């Protein structure tokens, strides 16, 4: 069951969007390492993503192992796995 909040869905969706942007810029920069404009885009979105993952992890569950350090229990093990509905933002028809 997907009992995630509207806010959680939105944040996860936004992380997906920004990370996809970074994936695309990475592949471009791999063969165009001196492209200043692409580099600026990358730096801009990398900063945003870093903050988003930090915020999401503090609020809901750690998306990376690194984001699990400030807790007294190992939340990494308790987080939903990516194939569960709980870890997938509902995209159509708004959210619950």
């Amino acid at each position, binding site marked *: 069951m997907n009992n995630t909040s509207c806010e959680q869905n939105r944040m996860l969706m936004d992380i997906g*969007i920004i990370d996809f942007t970074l994936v695309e810029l990475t592949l471009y920069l791999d*063969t165009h390492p001196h492209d200043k*404009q*692409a580099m600026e885009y990358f730096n801009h979105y990398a900063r945003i993503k870093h903050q988003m993952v930090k915020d999401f992890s503090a609020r809901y569950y750690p998306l990376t192992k690194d984001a699990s350090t400030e807790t007294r229990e190992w939340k990494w093990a308790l987080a939903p796995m990516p194939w569960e509905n709980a870890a997938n933002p509902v995209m159509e028809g708004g959210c619950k």
Partner: protein
Amino acid sequence: MQDYNFDEHFDRFPVAMAYVPWQHLSQIYENLETAYRTGTIFPELDKPFVGRRVVR
């Protein structure tokens, strides 16, 4: 790697080899959510599959 200008030097390329034109960044899609759903942030790489050949 060298950044070849594909159009300019095309006739100087050896025959019987395959070449891929170089991508030059112009802009990325403004709406990144649309880009995410489309599958690319680069307008020049947005080539929907229509069964046999690409469009645009």
